[in-house]
């Protein structure tokens, strides 16, 4: 990763967290669900940016990516079923 990209990722991290907080103040009473959705998307995008660039997953052989993807798949199953089991 080039140094300029690193600064780009960092700038994105800062902007994203500020946006999250901004969205929180804007929507927390108006539309809680929309706020939750927007903040979740932002958080996920931050995490993705770090994995792809800082952890250089994009330059690793495909097989390594499995070690990131498989647990996320399993966890999604856990989360979905868990919430569903609340009925």
């Amino acid at each position, binding site marked *: *990763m080039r*140094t300029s990209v*690193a*600064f780009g*990722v*960092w700038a994105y*991290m*800062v902007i994203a*967290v*500020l946006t*999250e*907080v901004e969205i*929180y103040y804007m929507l*927390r009473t108006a539309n809680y669900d929309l*706020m*939750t959705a927007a*903040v*979740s998307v*932002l*958080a996920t995008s*931050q*995490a993705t940016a*770090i*994995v792809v660039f*800082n*952890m250089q997953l994009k330059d*690793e*052989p*495909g*097989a*390594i990516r499995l*070690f*990131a993807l*498989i*647990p*996320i*798949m*399993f*966890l999604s*199953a*856990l*989360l979905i*079923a*868990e*919430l*569903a*089991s*609340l*009925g």
Partner: protein
Amino acid sequence: MLYFFTSLYFGIIGAILALLMRVQLSVPNNFFLSAYYYDQAVTMHGLIMIFWFLSPIAIGLANYFVPLQIGAKDLAFPRLNAMSYWLYLSGGIMAVLSFFVPGGSADAGWTNYQPLAVLTPGSGTTLVYLGLVLLAASITLGSINFVVSIIWLRAPGMSLDKLPMFTWFILFTIIAMLFAFPTLIAAFALASSDRILGTVFFTSTQIQPSILWDNLFWFFGHPEVYIVLLPGFGIIANIVPQFTGRPLAAKNAILVATALVVLPLSFGVWMHHMFLTGIPVDLQGAFSIATIAISIPFDVITLSFVESMIRGRVKLLTPMLFVLGAVVLFIIGGITGVFLSSPVLDRVFRGSYFVVAHFHYVMVGAAIFSIFAGIYYWIPRFTGRMYNERLGKIHFVISFIGFNVLYFPMNFLFDMPRRIFTYPNIGNWALLNGIASVGAFIFAGAQTLLAANLLYTWFRGPPSPPNPWGSPDLEWKSQPVLTPSPTAPTDTSESPPAGGWIGQLATPASPATETHAAGAEHGEAHYSSRPIQLSFGAMIFLMGAAFYPGILAIGLMVIGGALFAVALGGWARDDLRHKFAPPPEEEGDRWPFQGVSKMKLGMWVFLSSEIVLFGSFLAAYIFIRGAAVTFPAPGSIHDIPLGTLNTIILATSGLTMFLAIQAIRQGDRRRLMQWMSVTFMLGSTFMGIKISEWVNLGSSGFTLSAPYPFNLAASAYYIIVGLHGAHVTAGLIMMVYLMKKTKDGEYTKESHEAIENFGLYWAFIDIVWCFIFPLFYLL
């Protein structure tokens, strides 16, 4: 091998507990054991057998034979292996000691259903929980080691399609372990924290804590049953061809079915243990279908075994007999399992002895019988001597009969609830239970024959031919040391001298250089005493925690903590002095991971288990948020601007860490040092702000004893944010070590792996925070 013998020892403890129970249950209205002792016996029998006997015995075999099968000298990280063993033992010691504390051991069933279990007082249960946490940590370290070894240490020419079946199935097992055990850690850590710190995860009645526990426990628990089973299947698949004279039928179909169906689905069927917990009907349907679906690949595997035996000319020697037994018993157990996967039938069978029969047919029948097969099969390779065939056959016959006398009657006890310590004389309960108890003693008695045979082989057995079964696998291409000394080998490093098995498939290397390399490398590494110190330090500390509060508890915690710290410092010092310099890495067959270094692969595997660990904690939190009807708005508790600032600080430390890596990639040690220092300072600032937040929160009444729902919010916040903080702190400590090495001029443009890998860890910590911040401060 130490692993192997230790697990036998725990197996004996588990068996004694089982016999005690069978004595109690042999006749109705019996009071040999009171409910108090019976409940402990049931619970600890289950836990010890599953966690300290069945899984470890397979790991013990794997520890010895996987390196041999792939043509490696040892596992990838010998000291990690030692660490894993000592943690396993420490956890076991805690579990066994729990019987001797006032109030006794855990007694709420091996599933430790909460909140029932939370309500049982006493340090014994807490000891068991923390012992399980140590065990799970041990398994996680072991998994990392095995994954890296199997991927990375294969000898040249040992491509994946040549990998022996046992190694394949160990790989499958290990992958399931890697993703299942972190959830177990999360579950028992939460439960222990309820017991010790007074958090309220499982005591707030407002959030359906039993559903939370069931989800966490069974998300781990169902994969765990395959973890128990798969090594046995690996043994069967590995040895059947040698006794039928023809290759395994549909070998590739087995591998594909296991990798693509069994493994992924094993994490998607856990709710069949929860059909009666009031979960929605649609969900029951989905999990019922998934459960039936997952039995299909098992049909494929079983059919393949059966087909291989029918088509081939079967040599009925002891290992093969046990294979046959395992397959027959698995078929019975599998059929009863399919009954249970129907939510309707399950209503009848649930919680009855029918379930007990089911899982013992699969766990004891299929798993243990195939492990016995493996023991007989490999003992010639291990001792260089042959076991006694006649005794082996008798052992099989009596075991098989005893087993069925023990468990078959339970299939008819589907109207008798399990986990009761005595029962009235109704219907044929007395008769069937009586028969089962007789069977238990037959089965247990038969195992003395196994012990006798092992001892006989060890000391008296006739020398065995080098490859008694005509196996094509690599482990037989090297020779064991004959004439074992009366002192049993005490370490895996006693693996026989490397008579040139590496490169067997490619070019035979000169044995002399190899023997040398093997001895120098891992022989010494194994004798590092640091892993023992670390494990015992952790054990003593956790024992103290279990007894908390009190003088004794604090004393133990201080001693344990000190031992841990000293060991950690010692470990670092050893490394700084290059006491255990790793040998140069040799070329091997690494597809599809060429070009990834061993350490980096290890780091990724570790992080992938960490994803599950944090994910389980966060999933628990999200569940709590969803289940709680009222929950304090986070913004009303936490200082959002300060949290935002802290988030930015951590993100910035990610940038500076990258700049540090960039510096050393260009060979600039001075800049590396500078950026590392900046990263360290940012990390410390982050922690400083965290601590000040905690102090403020604590003094403003946001504590575990606050009224509901604040106590719940506080529990989740302190535990999860604390776990993250502990990771940051560990990172800071590692940074000190790396900076010391930088100062010593250890890192160069070409060689600075440790820095790169630390960068991965640090980035991961940042990622976790990306989720913690919005979850706890905003949503």
